[in-house]
């Protein structure tokens, strides 16, 4: 069957993709600045358990993702405080455990979902109802980030400096976890849980070299994200590939181009 870009599901896919880009650029900057890509990855991995439980208990996928990812984040932050294991090891254990339990829960209960779509994204799964939920998530994230921008930034630069000015880094880390959770829930259908981290990291890393201020970096990352999403979805339709990997390939290409561009400019 021939797909045209005017098909409603493709338009819905693009609108949904833009929703993802609107928040993954900004939030991705914090992930890059704080070098916590593995944490983002772990939160994303734990979302499959949320999907399974959400369907099993009839609460809906989004609710399941939010609850499971938040619990995962809180469990991690708590274990990290106790300093029994290194952050890296702890995440390695928890993330894969959550992913595995998720797959077991889904297969044991014979839940009829397309795991492939959750892992790599599928624009065909986006309904107009989903779009409303996504944009609700987008507004929430943008509000949370803008409202707490300077606190988030200061904790990112230095936790002790933030503490000396009356910010409790634990609350800021919880806030960031909440924001990440929403980003995961919003991105899951389009990008897929295995590639969400890529959408957080690549646009932010692309804009790092081009930006002179944190705000500029977030803005450029957002545009890079939007561009990648639109081009990526077209590409996925053209070659009939899953949307997530197509979007990631486009944004990674932009990433390398930005470095090349930067390299040429510096040479002159």
């Amino acid at each position: 069957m021939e797909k045209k870009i005017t098909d409603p599901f493709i338009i819905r896919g693009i609108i949904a993709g833009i929703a993802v880009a609107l928040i993954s650029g900004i939030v991705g900057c914090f992930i890059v600045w704080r070098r916590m890509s593995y944490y983002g990855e772990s939160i994303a991995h734990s979302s499959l358990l949320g999907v399974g439980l959400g369907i099993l208990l009839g609460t809906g996928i989004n609710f399941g993702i939010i609850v499971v990812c938040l619990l995962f984040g809180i469990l991690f932050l708590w274990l990290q405080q106790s300093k029994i294991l290194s952050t890296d090891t702890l995440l390695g254990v928890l993330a894969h455990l959550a992913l595995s339990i998720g797959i077991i829960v889904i297969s044991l209960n014979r839940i009829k979902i397309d795991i492939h779509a959750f892992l790599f994204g599928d624009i065909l799964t986006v309904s107009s109802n989903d779009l409303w939920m996504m944009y609700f998530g987008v507004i929430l994230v943008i509000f949370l980030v803008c409202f707490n921008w300077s606190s988030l930034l200061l904790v990112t630069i230095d936790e002790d400096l933030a503490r000396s000015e009356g910010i409790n880094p634990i609350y800021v880390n919880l806030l960031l976890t909440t924001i990440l959770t929403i980003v995961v829930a919003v991105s899951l259908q389009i990008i897929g849980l295995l590639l969400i981290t890529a959408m957080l990291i690549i646009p932010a890393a692309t804009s790092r070299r081009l930006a002179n201020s944190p705000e500029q970096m977030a803005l450029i990352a957002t545009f890079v994200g939007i561009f990648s999403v639109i081009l990526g979805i077209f590409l996925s339709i053209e070659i009939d590939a899953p949307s997530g990997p197509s979007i990631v390939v486009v944004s990674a290409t932009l990433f390398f181009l930005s470095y090349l561009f930067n390299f040429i400019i510096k040479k002159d």
Partner: protein
Amino acid sequence: MKTINALISASNVSVIKHHKSILKNIDIQINKNDFITIIGPNGAGKTMLLKCLMGFYEPNFGKIQKKDKLKIGYMPQSINVINTVPITVKSFITVRKKYDDVSFKQVISEVDINQLVNKQLSVLSGGEMQRVLLARSLLNNPDLLVLDEPAQNLDISGQLSFYKLIQEIYSKRNISILMVSHDLHLVMVSTKKVLCLSNHICCSGKPQQVAQDPEFISMFGKDMANMMAVYQHTNHTSQIDNQLIDGEKNN
């Protein structure tokens, strides 16, 4: 509740972490116009003491009282993330601060970083970074400046000019300073009180007194004590350079 005159007053503060005593029965008062330098070997609990006094860390025992509306300027040893965040010196100094242009300009000329304000934080040298951190800690006109090994990453001339700057700020602004420093021989001239810490307070008092204290000598050795004895005769910061060379020759 009785009001206190001291800016910060700690009594009987103890911190135990992982079954190890980090701080033991610490009593300390920071008054107006104090210049206190904390010295001690690695792992003596110096940074922990600062954290407790500033309220970052709740001690297991003891009480810490802060004066109402006390403004603290804190300068950390270094900051962790600088290369990943594109941020100019000006944005960094002013992030999350209420300030006006006049006080900003005053602070940057005070620490002499006028040339740096539009540079990226990631390109600064060690000495420039320390001045920028100092500027940030001064922007709110603090009553108390807390410095955690501020000159640790500087070379010797950098250290000298940095401590000279601290001395100028101390005398001009009429504030209190609490500093952790290993470079006691360099801050001798400015500091009014030395607190020698090794999980408990070994000795404290005027630098000259502390230098003669047996506990101090056993911890830092006779050379350090002699070196400090050289400095107590000078009152002019400008002579530090020569003094230091003499001090080294004497060893």
